[in-house]
């Protein structure tokens, strides 16, 4: 009898502490919404949350907030809101549902710094209604080294929570990198075989393009960010994979089906296969080409067609690849090369042409003087839209990458350095993307604080886009 009473009292006390945790967490989130990270206003609510968490741990209970059948629970105890706490409850429940979070568990050892970062993630991630939102959330937590807070996802019906394998998340991040390297590997193998005059085998490439498309469709990672990876000495390999990624991004905007995307990806991946026939001394020439060398370079579309015609069986896929290789330098007004009585440009040709040019302009390759910054490259291409580039596809392309595409290295007016992580969903704010600060105004490397340049409280604007390759900075490590 007495023990029962005691349990009841304990439970009442726990409910009280639990409610306090929810309320304090609510205040923290609200404050985080209104004050930038580092502002003093955040400190008090942060301390309150941490105090509650510690209190719960002291009682050997789990400091977790869980959504279940329309209620909030702490551990197994249902927290009934009173009139005063209703707002807090609804807000927390709403936030959790928006990010498809089923439960938040502050584990022992959690620090104020972690709780603070955690609170800011809510304003950093767009809660689009997609299972990826939750994954993104977890990824961001990893990026920000929030390790003592554990999340569970909301069940499919929005009620039950299901265990999520944390390692799977790591896998997601790795997966995108892996597919990039696999694609590099596949294209280099094909190109090397092509060089030696061996029969081309497309199967492996097809597989990697398929997994790339899977990732693209699942939005597990922003593939465009992957184009910042530079991992092979041979420019053509990186270029081919990048053109593949950028083309797929456009193809997805157009709404191509999976098989169509596969054809597009393959055509893009192999668009420069003809270069395998061009002597490396020209291909890798560190200076400008002579007239004769240009003439040889300009043979690569035809050399590509020649190589690809040797493929066994001319099916729809290999035909599309051939068309891509042939058309990608023709230009809209057919002022490009090869100059032949061929006056047709397929959608694939138009897409690959734009992706090719953009990557060509922005990549630092051996024979290019100075690679253009993404915004300059876009400016350059926009000026030639209609004549050289298809205006409609160009629009879609800019929609894919924004003005400062993911991975752009920016110098801010604060003389801080940052890397673009995400574009603002509002195109009008594309000159103010979401970024990761990688160095402070003194040029000291920082921990990678996130900033939304569109947020007026952020008070930073873009000065200039810099060329990461010129300074040999690997931006990809901040993104993927």
């Amino acid at each position, binding site marked *: 009898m007495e023990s029962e009473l005691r349990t009841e009292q304990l439970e009442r006390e726990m409910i009280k502490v639990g409610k306090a945790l929810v309320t304090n967490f609510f205040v923290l989130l609200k404050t985080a919404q209104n004050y930038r990270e580092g502002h003093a206003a955040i400190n008090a609510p942060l301390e309150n949350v941490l105090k509650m968490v510690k209190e719960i741990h002291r009682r050997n209970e789990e400091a977790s907030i869980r959504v279940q059948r329309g209620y909030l629970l702490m551990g197994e105890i249902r927290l009934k809101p009173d009139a005063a706490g209703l707002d807090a409850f609804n807000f927390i429940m709403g936030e959790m549902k928006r990010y498809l979070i089923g439960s938040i568990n502050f584990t022992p050892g959690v620090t104020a710094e972690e709780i603070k970062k955690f609170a800011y993630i809510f304003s950093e991630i767009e809660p689009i209604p997609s299972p990826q939102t939750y994954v993104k959330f977890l990824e961001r937590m990893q990026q920000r080294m929030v390790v003592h807070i554990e999340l569970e996802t909301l069940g499919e019906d929005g009620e039950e929570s299901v265990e999520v394998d944390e390692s799977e998340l790591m896998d997601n991040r790795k997966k995108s990198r892996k597919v990039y390297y696999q694609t590099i590997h596949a294209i280099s193998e094909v190109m090397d075989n092509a060089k030696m005059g061996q029969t081309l085998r497309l199967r492996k490439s097809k597989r990697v393009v398929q997994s790339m498309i899977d990732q693209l469709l699942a939005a597990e990672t922003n593939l465009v960010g992957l184009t910042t990876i530079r991992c092979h000495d041979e420019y053509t390999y990186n270029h081919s994979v990048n053109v593949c990624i950028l083309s797929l991004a456009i193809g997805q905007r157009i709404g191509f089906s999976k098989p169509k995307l596969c054809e597009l990806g393959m055509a893009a991946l192999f668009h420069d296969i003809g270069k395998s026939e061009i002597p490396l001394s020209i291909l890798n020439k560190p200076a400008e080409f002579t007239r004769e060398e240009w003439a040889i370079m300009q043979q690569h579309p035809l050399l590509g067609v020649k190589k690809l*015609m040797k493929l066994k069986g001319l099916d729809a896929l290999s*035909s599309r690849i051939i068309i891509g290789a042939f058309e990608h330098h023709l230009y809209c007004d057919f002022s490009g090369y090869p100059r032949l009585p061929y006056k047709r440009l397929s959608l694939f040709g138009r897409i690959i042409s734009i992706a090719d040019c953009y990557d060509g302009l922005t990549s630092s390759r051996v024979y290019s003087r100075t690679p253009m910054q993404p915004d300059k490259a876009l400016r350059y291409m926009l000026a030639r839209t209609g004549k050289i580039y298809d205006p409609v596809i160009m629009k879609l392309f*800019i929609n894919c990458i924004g*003005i400062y595409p993911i991975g752009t290295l920016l110098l801010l007016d604060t003389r801080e350095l940052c890397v673009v992580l995400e574009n603002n969903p509002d195109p009008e704010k594309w000159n103010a993307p979401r970024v990761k600060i990688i160095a402070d105004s003194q040029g000291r490397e920082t921990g990678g604080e996130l900033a939304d340049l569109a947020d007026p409280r952020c008070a930073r604007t873009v000065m200039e886009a810099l060329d990461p390759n010129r*300074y040999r900075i690997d931006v990809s490590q901040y993104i993927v």
Partner: protein
Amino acid sequence: MTEMVAGQQETVETPDASREELTLATEVMQSMVKTSKGFKIYLPNNPLLTRFVEELNEKMGKHLSLYGEYRLDIDQFELRYKGKTVYENRDPKESMAFKMYSDGIRFVIFSEGLEEYELCGFLEIVGKDRPSDVDDDIVTLLWEKNFPHLVTVLTDDFLEFDADVGGHVAPSSQQEKITGIYTAYSPEEIPPSPLLIPQKILTLSDKETDWLRKAREADEKRKPLDDVIQIITSILVGEHDPVVFGEFVGIMAKLAENLFNSGEVRYALNITWFLGNLARNEQIPEANRAEIDRALGTILSPDTAKIIARTIDTSELLSPDKLRDLLLIFGPPAVGRMCELLGLVEKMKMRKVIIQVLCEIGCDAPEVFIPYLSDSRWYLVRNIVFILTRIGSPATLDSLMALISHREVRIRKEVLGYLERVPDPKAKTCLLKFLRDDSSVIRIRALQILASTRCTFALKPILALTTSEQFQERDIMEKKAVCEAIGELGADQMLPLFREMLTKKYWFNKAKEKESIICAVAGLVKVRSASAAKLLEEVSAVKGDEIRDIIIQGLGAIAAESAKGVAAP
């Protein structure tokens, strides 16, 4: 049935699942195999097939609800469930295991919630017999279908990359490089004003959306192959570099050949005609045109010949005129293959076209035909001999002589024609051999040829024939032919012989006597001299009415002949 679904027999491996689970897994597999076969045999609406599918769906559903997933390990010829072989088929054409394995699939996992359409889709893809030369592609087909409760794991998925290539996810310090920026960057540089893109550049107008839709539709409608052909066509029309031109001519010819072989005959024909026209285009440099001719000769291969023959016999795609044009485009380099084609085509009218063309273009190198003289198809040999006769080159005489004793009479007859036509004296000597041919038709023909070509050397052997015992057994036509040849070749010298034949008495055999006189008259008609006529008149006086009529007819023939002889010069 080579397919084996595990039943009672135990596997060597120790399975890590309960007996019940394995039994059910085996039943699921049995049901899968049955359904997969059903797909091949029955129409989709067949009630039996419907039952199979229902049964499979039920079994699989039961399994999944009990055990969560149905995961198969794929080996080259076997499928295993938790260590137990549940399927085995070693026939690469049929085996589901082999098809998946060779396509790189190592596991297939069905999970709870699996729907009937996924199961059926899977079986249709995996179960279908596919020609082995099609490069994969079960993986792509499954990938395109995107079945939510069906996962395949590929060999490539096991491929890991070294940490130093792809693994460094954790950021490493780049302080040094960052410092580099701060030292290199001079703030005096005036940065360009940020690029501001007006909204109208970012959203597609209705017109643009419409354009995009139409462009997609147009692309969808076009066969990619058309574009490829168009590309190569434009290269051939626009490229002047002889090396590049030559390469692409070869590529185009190869494409035509491949298209023939893959059954795209219309395309293949169009390409061939295109190349043919290009070869006749005088604006193309001579050397390039020669290149085209050479390439054109390669299109007709033993395989394409089969396809073209089938096209000729089973469709109206090629009219006689078109066929003729096509063969002329293939040209002399393809003469050998055309013989092949001739051996395959059944339509008489079309065979004649081929023969006609071969007669026209084969004359420069008649030796190309020689191998076909030993072909096992008599009709082909006969046609080839016919063609060689029309060409009339002595170069092929030796090879044709080998056919003098060919067992097919129609061939021997054709050879005879060749020997008659070919101007080589050796050919005439060969004719003598036919005098002993098994066929009287041939013997008669040989006699006629020897006579008409005035081969006097044949007189002796022919006379010798008359003394042989067999000769008396020959029918009257042949005997007549012998006498005619003798008359022709021996002329007045033969009068005593004919006189004897005319006057010899066959007391008990009136028919024989008549025969002898008919033959003698025929011979004398060929002698057609005044002495011959005199002899006939002489004899007619002493003969009865019936014989006299024959003789008078002979006299008439001589008169007509000599009238012709007078008129001719």
